[in-house]
């Protein structure tokens, strides 16, 4: 059973991530929780909804999240793939899913996901992280606290720092 980070905790995970084989075909197990590629969801939505087990969809970095904006109620998980950790398209996809299309469920970063990107990923709306093989999930948890503040608006803090300053904000320490 795989180990992932969810809501800043290391947990075991039952979801099966399905990827197409070399010939493009994909085998969907009869039961169990699965995360299927966007194209498979679009082609086999009725079959997938009818099968037992929970359903998630994963988006490639090149996929347009608008394509599942109307399907969110059918899904229990959305994952976004990072082919390389230096490929930043998934950050924009995450913000669009959260801020524009209103996805409230689990948003999981998959692929080349490393400790040193967790802080930014979380700010863009990811709340689950399947780290690259060989990464120490427990040690990675401290990354969420790398910084205690942020200037910009983000999914975590929808108002930018300049709108949060002043009385009642956590920033009362400011000297003017």
């Amino acid at each position, binding site marked *: 059973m795989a180990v992932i980070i969810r809501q800043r905790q290391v947990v075991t995970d039952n979801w099966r991530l399905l990827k197409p084989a070399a010939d493009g075909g994909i085998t969907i197990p009869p039961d169990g929780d699965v995360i299927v590629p966007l194209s498979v969801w679009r082609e086999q939505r009725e079959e997938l909804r009818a099968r037992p087990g929970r359903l998630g969809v994963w988006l490639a970095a090149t996929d347009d999240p608008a394509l599942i904006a109307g399907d969110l109620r059918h899904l229990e998980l959305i994952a976004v793939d990072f082919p390389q*950790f230096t490929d930043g398209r998934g*950050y*924009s996809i995450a*913000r669009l899913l959260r801020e524009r299309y209103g996805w409230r469920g689990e948003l999981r970063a998959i692929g080349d996901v490393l400790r040193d990107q967790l802080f930014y990923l979380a700010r863009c709306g990811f709340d689950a992280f399947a780290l690259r093989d060989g990464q120490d999930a427990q040690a990675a948890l401290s990354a969420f606290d790398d910084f205690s503040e942020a*200037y*910009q*608006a983000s999914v975590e803090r929808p108002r930018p720092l300049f709108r949060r*300053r002043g009385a009642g904000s956590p920033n009362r320490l*400011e000297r003017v």
Partner: protein
Amino acid sequence: MYLYDEIDQRLVDERVVQFRDQTRRFLAGELSEDDFRPLRLQNGLYIQRFAPMLRIAIPYGLLASRQLRALAYIARKWDRGYGHFSTRQNIQFNWPRLEDVPEILAKLATVQMHAIQTSGNCIRNTTTDHFAGVADDEIVDPFVWCEIIRQWSTFHPEFAYLPRKFKIAVSGSEADRAATQVHDIGLQARRDVSGNVGFRVLAGGGLGRTPLIGAVMREFLPWQHLLTYLEAILRVYNRYGRRDNKYRARIKILVKDLTPDVFRAQVEEEWAHLQDGASTLTADEVQRLEKRFTRPCYRKSDALSSGYVLALARDKAFGNWVRRNVQPHKVAGYAAVTLSLKKTGVPPGDATADQMDAVADLADRYSFGELRVSHEQNLILADVRQADLYQLWQEARTLGLATPNIGLLTNIIACPGGDFCSLANAKSIPVAEAIQQRFDDLDYLHDIGELDLNISGCMNSCGHHHIGHIGILGVDKQGAEYYQISIGGAQGNDAALGKVLGPSVSQAEVPDVIEHLIELYLARRDSEAERFIDVVRRIGIEPFKDHVYGSHHQATASRHRQLAAA
């Protein structure tokens, strides 16, 4: 000078802790070279030809004297006693040890400095006019807007892994002294008919392999929308910019491939969702930042200083320096002084630790303890009393910082080139020096008049050769270092990209080619008022080509004969 508040300081301190741990994990083998590379780059650390190179941010080129002293300290303690001011208004150290970098960053944090996002595929240091706040054609003070952009771009979670680096420049005045047309995003302050402030927004400009002038996205964007509009541009670029080829990955390629109209339509569509959102700027925030800038307390002084007028009359050398290196100031009785880092024999933009300390002292005594770094790689004391100019000039001369060549041919912009940089095809520094030596006669130099000569050691164009009136580009020709010369480039409001003159030439031939170009210019100009660039624009590059290569543009052999005879 912008003064950090508690949060600004805390973020920079937390960055030091973060990078210290990343470096520790790298040295302990827990972080691979590939995984560490983007992390160190976003802290300005390159692995270079001889040692790591550390690029330290000087946000929008503004420095306090205590910060310059800290840079001098770093140069002595962790480098070899000097630093190189770059065309991005930053400073680079070429000899620090990787293991020492966390300590250097910690030292920087004590003076409100850092190396955040000075490299890597993220939003880099925002640059602006080095005469910000003192120029009399100013519409807004660009420093305030640069600081707004600095805060917004610092640790922006969505845009840390863009297809390629991303550079923003802001001009606050009528005349564009910030090269905004050749940046990924260029912002030019404007006022509408009712006097409201806004920005003309350009995107997709740039130098490098595919030099392009930015396309207009908005003729007038009200200031409140600045950040949401930047987010819209960056998001379209982050999602659709090419990632398969690093030479095709800058935003300019996306704008060009889509066409500016299609790109603009995509930005506008994205912005429609972001418009009036939480990131819309407020007057309170702009005023809060304005108040965090220290401002000079100018002394009242109405007439011309009599000592100054007398010195001008008596001392020709002083007069030359004033003519070239002193600019007018919006406050009567004050002037902006450029300390030239372009003395012959010294690599352009280099300053020793002793010079840095001495300049910090000059800034304290003559210019309210502040200075600026220009993208032309000089240092500016922006608020000097006219009555102090003569004294300042004498001191600057002793320090080797009073070469009266600002705007002239020997004020060469050059990257570090093949002597230091592992990307370079060819050396820049010896070429700059050979040209400076050839044009060492000051009277001749002044007679030639205004001329921008820029040198880049490779296509990455750190020396901005495309926008030099004369541009020199290092190229690799079957393993040998050659130089391609272009003319007709310009920065400013009438920015233009230079055209290649002809076949590239060897290092030894470069000064000859420059001399030929100057000969033809002097022969063809209408008057002393007609600058080199004006003549190129009027008569085209053909006559220059003929004069340099001979009238038939013949093969290499005849070129060599002609140059040898020169």
